[in-house]
């Protein structure tokens, strides 16, 4: 067989080349199968997106290996296109994911993983308590109840405030009529960027 491995095929028996290529092919195959398992299992759409990225990267590396072993370089534009698809898909899914899309796989008893290590340490007081933004938001909302009154509570603004996109806000039934997505997204994006920029 005419391959790019001119020297290797000449000096060694072609058995070495075939053996190593087959072994590496099995590695790529195993990686692809495992990422497909994560695509099936992944409890949220972001997990599935990550696993799709891994699958695409494995395919790209497999194509690159094929290009190296066989010496044909016409698969390189294919790799470029695959890379572009992976990036665009990843970014668009994570941009428009909303809270209602989480946990799309039902939680079975075996799928629950309990983390007893940090919980036990936190209960005993050795680790500081982690107050996530959910608790802080509740505090903010409770503090605002006196000022803004029932209007803020009823429209569920505390729940809404965390979403990074306009598509998810349209999903919320109570507020879809009032919100103008374009007007809302500009200040929201700016403040979100400010908020993240302060930390970064």
């Amino acid at each position, binding site marked *: 067989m005419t391959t790019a491995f001119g020297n290797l095929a000449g000096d060694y028996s072609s058995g070495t080349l075939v053996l*190593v290529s087959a072994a590496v092919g099995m590695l790529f195959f195993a990686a692809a199968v495992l990422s497909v398992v994560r695509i099936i299992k992944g409890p949220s759409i972001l997990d599935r997106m990550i696993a799709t990225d*891994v699958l695409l990267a494995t395919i790209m590396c497999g194509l*690159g290996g094929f290009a190296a072993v066989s010496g044909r370089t016409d698969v390189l534009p294919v790799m470029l296109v695959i*890379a572009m698809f992976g990036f665009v898909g990843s*970014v668009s899914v994570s941009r428009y994911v909303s809270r209602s899309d989480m946990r799309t796989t039902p939680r079975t008893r075996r799928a629950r993983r309990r983390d007893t290590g940090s919980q036990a340490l936190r209960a005993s007081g050795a680790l500081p308590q982690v107050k996530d933004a959910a608790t*802080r938001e509740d505090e903010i909302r409770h503090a605002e109840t006196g000022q803004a009154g029932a209007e803020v509570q009823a429209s569920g603004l505390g729940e809404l405030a965390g979403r990074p996109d306009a598509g998810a806000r349209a999903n919320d039934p109570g507020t879809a009529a009032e919100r103008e997505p374009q007007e809302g997204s500009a200040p929201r994006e700016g403040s979100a960027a*400010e908020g*993240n920029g*302060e930390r970064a």
Partner: protein
Amino acid sequence: MIQDTITLVMIAGAGLLSLAAAVGALRFPDLLSRMHAASKPQLFGLVLVMFAVTVQVFQWGPISTMLLIVLFQLFTVPVAAHMVGRAGYRTKHLRRSMLYRDELSDAVSRAQAREVAERERGDKERADEGKHTA
């Protein structure tokens, strides 16, 4: 012969890294750790494979295409991983008690409070305009 040995070693390394990425994406318990495991070996494996192809085919056409591929991945994989992490963090459902330190929650809650205040102001302005025109 050295060429071919280098090529085989690099392709084997890329295979191992892809396997590591897939195993990491499968076995880690949380979205954010899976994101770490999935994005880092992917890039390095691609670089190794591109080296392997370059060693075999040393012409400027394929080399420029491969450079383009590697640069594209280098710029976009961190962006995609960051966006996935941001979406996973801000939708709150994926954050669990596995965090030891949460350094971002301050900035996020401040930004959210600011958004709430801005939205209230926008509502009040719109309500006032409605009253004036009606």
